[in-house]
């Protein structure tokens, strides 16, 4: 998906700006989701340990 595709013309300045803005938006959302999963797995672990004891 991200290899250099020589068949397409290079990005214009505006396209590059939009591309980077989208990358940034996706990275922020991914970071938020990962943080949410860390918290969720922490809580699951606590519940499982509690149930085990």
């Amino acid at each position: 998906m991200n290899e250099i595709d020589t068949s397409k013309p290079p990005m214009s300045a505006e396209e590059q700006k939009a591309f980077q803005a989208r990358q940034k938006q996706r990275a922020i959302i991914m970071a938020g989701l990962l943080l949410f999963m860390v918290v969720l797995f922490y809580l699951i672990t606590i519940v499982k340990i509690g149930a085990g004891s």
Partner: protein
Amino acid sequence: MTTASTSLYGLASARDLFALTKPRVMTLVIFTALCGMLAAPGSIHPVIGFTAILAISLGAGASAALNQWYEADIDAIMKRTSQRPLPAGRMDAETALHFGIGLSVFSVVLMGVAVNWFSAVFLAFSIFFYAVVYTIWLKRSTPQNIVIGGAAGAFPPAIGWAAVTGDVTLMPVLLFAIIFFWTPPHFWALALFMNSDYSKAGIPMMPVVAGRESTRKQIFGYSLILAAIAIAPYPLGFTGAIYGTSAILLSVVFSALSLQVMMSQTSEPKDMAAEKRLFKFSILYLFALFAALVADRLVLA
């Protein structure tokens, strides 16, 4: 499939990835799975219950993504679906496929690790059933496609139940059967006034293949079977009077609206008031029936 300018060099937006999971369908999945969970005997820790609903929702989102990956060609032909991310050229097919498979694996592993492996296998089967058996195999080859697709949509309450109990008994099978028999009248009512779109895309939808009259008769037939199954939990002693009364009232209205559809002769979508009424009521029917089931369980408890 796509051009650099519309998909920004293969980088789909987060909004389009979210749209790929069919969020509106997911609300019904979350609702019915939650109802299955709340109606099941026994208890589940709120964190584990939340995780189970999350896993079921992600599994449904994964099925939707795989469905849209495979159906981009027919989605492009139909007006209702032509603006989805793939046919509109805002995402490439590879992204949708990877997203769908990744989400499928994650949802099943999450369910297995956090909840139990019985419901994880059940979830995996439901994804396989929707993406492969329905989407790839049967949707384009049989006019009973919606009946089979209905089975895929009917899994969530049974999986929600299995998350609590770790098994499947007669009651979750009845919950499955309610959605299974609800889907054909719900979807065929829509297909009747959207007929031209399906004809254009070459999907063997019942009104296209068997004609309007036969479809209308089948809608009524399925509504009677649905009524019998929806009411059954009450005489079988699985639920109390709140559910029993609600199921009877809702099913009588559903059957009456289906009868109106059967009596209808019109072929013009703009005149299909009875079909549109049934379609709208069918959504309310399912929400109200499952809400009554939960209310009944909470009152009995």
